């Protein structure tokens, strides 16, 4: 069988992830929720554990060697993150995650560079984390949100995008890959068009960075954000890339220790970026874990990861089509290893519960993208998403469980 031969050659990734040998509701776990958060390889778990056991101290403070060691590994993580997306390390700011990074740009760039009536272009497929920070700016300072519509196939309406620019447009904020339907947006073209209108671009890369090579220099984006936890690293840390000339114009987002040169009650002098934007003790162990995650996936090779996930996607789409009673939302390609679907009138949460009982972890709901749900006129979808550790047997388990849904809801799913 085609699937079996493919499975054997790809099985080796799974062994690095101890949790994937576990269970869900007493059945062997089938983890298909990596778009929500990825599982962690032993290498990442060990790196964090070793750091706390051997090298931990606060950074940028201690005069002692131990603090120097901790500082070095933290800054090595910044250098690794920079190399990973082809940036320089003084353009890499550690944040709490993608959400933290976008909020930083909204509050620091947005409040310093925009005025009431200025416009920000977003898209209908954004995650709430790339809508709500801009909506807050709308409430705080009266900026205007313009929205690029999504077409029936799940791609962006590029003609509409081009027509949204005006003399008041001050920023484009767009996701690289849809967290719901997997669409890979043509962000290079979108950035070129924005720049031809003198408008900077923020790219939400949370769903892209785990699945494909990202080169911010080649893209020429102004801001790029991603989270460690979707990249097989720990929770609590993420990255904001920003071009140096923006960082030097942006005021600090939060104030505290570690981001100042001198403080008196009359005058405060800030250090330069990136530390200007990292007030307080950061997630040092998180950076260590992120460094290990970047090393782990770099060893596998992003091209191999992409090839593997694309073959899983292709296999899953083929199997779902064969079922005949499952409708995929968002059919455009290229897409990342994310499939959103519905089964006629069977509610996504009923499907989710049935899959859960079969050991399968998927996401059912609005996926923090309520405008996109409204666009496709569905209250919720079921989403299966792939990581490097998934193999064809995971897809087969999903397909079998969907047949069970059909047996339990014979009329509704018809």
């Amino acid at each position, binding site marked *: 069988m085609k699937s079996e031969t493919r499975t054997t050659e790809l099985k080796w990734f799974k062994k690095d992830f101890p949790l994937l040998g576990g269970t869900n509701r007493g059945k062997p776990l089938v983890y298909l929720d990596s778009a929500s958060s990825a599982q962690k390889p032993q290498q990442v778990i060990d790196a964090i554990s070793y750091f706390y056991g051997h090298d931990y101290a606060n950074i940028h403070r201690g005069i002692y060697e131990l603090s120097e060691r901790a500082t070095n590994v933290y800054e090595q993580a910044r250098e690794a993150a920079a190399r990973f997306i082809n940036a320089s390390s003084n353009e890499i700011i550690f944040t709490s995650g993608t959400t933290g990074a976008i909020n930083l740009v909204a509050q620091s760039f947005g409040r310093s560079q925009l005025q009431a009536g200025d416009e920000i272009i977003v898209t209908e497929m954004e995650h709430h984390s790339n809508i709500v920070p801009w909506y807050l700016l709308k409430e705080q300072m009266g900026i205007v949100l313009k929205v690029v519509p999504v077409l029936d196939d799940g791609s962006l309406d590029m003609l509409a995008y081009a027509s949204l620019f005006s003399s008041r447009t001050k920023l484009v904020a767009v996701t690289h890959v849809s967290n719901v339907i997997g669409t890979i947006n043509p962000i290079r073209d979108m950035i070129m068009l924005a720049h031809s209108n003198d408008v900077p671009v923020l790219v939400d890369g949370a769903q892209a960075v785990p699945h494909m090579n990202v080169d911010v220099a080649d893209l020429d984006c102004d801001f790029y954000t991603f989270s460690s936890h979707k990249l097989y690293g720990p929770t609590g840390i993420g990255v904001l890339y920003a071009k140096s000339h923006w960082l030097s114009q942006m005021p600090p987002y939060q104030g505290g220790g570690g981001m100042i040169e001198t403080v008196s009650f009359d005058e405060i002098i800030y250090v330069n970026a990136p530390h200007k934007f990292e007030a307080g003790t950061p997630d040092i162990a998180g950076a260590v874990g992120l460094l290990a995650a970047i090393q782990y996936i770099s060893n596998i090779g992003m091209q191999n990861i992409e090839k593997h996930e694309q073959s899983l996607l292709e296999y899953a789409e083929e199997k779902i089509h064969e079922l005949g009673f499952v409708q995929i939302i968002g059919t455009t390609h290229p897409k990342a290893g994310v499939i959103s679907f519905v089964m006629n009138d069977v*509610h996504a949460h*009923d499907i989710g519960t*049935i899959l*859960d009982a079969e050991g399968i972890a998927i996401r059912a*709901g609005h996926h923090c993208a309520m405008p996109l749900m409204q666009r496709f006129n569905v*209250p919720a979808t079921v989403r299966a998403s792939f990581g490097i550790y998934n193999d064809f047997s995971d897809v087969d388990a999903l397909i079998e469980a969907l047949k069970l849904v059909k047996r*339990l*809801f014979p*009329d*509704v799913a018809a």
Partner: protein
Amino acid sequence: MSLRELYQEMIIDHGRNPRNFGGLAQATHCKNGQNPLCGDKLSVYLIEMDGVVVDVKFEGAGCAISVASASLMTDAVKGKKVEDVLSLFQHFHELLTTGKANDEALGKLSIFAGVAEFPVRVKCATLAWHTLKAAILHDDKSVSTE
């Protein structure tokens, strides 16, 4: 607990063909409820006379568990005294959180015992009841399970 017990025929049937579905023009009480996590939304209408729920209907959309629960709820409370409706909700809530049924009080409603195994689904099964209770008590706040 098997899936067949959770999604047994009566639940699938009431989820697919809900009883007492629709608006109620002469309603003395009505209330909207929603479960923002799932997107489930429903409205409960009832006519109360002399402390008795003489008629009750609902409309809305949601998962099989929430629609079946609303449907079976309307069947169960019609003709009951308000205080008995409220105590029935207490029994029902206990069933969903402990899985132990007081069959005498609950009757058909005990088919929801399986929900107790799936704590995230308790909100689905109680949405209609919370909404009904708020309607009866004239609670002005809109009902949300979050």
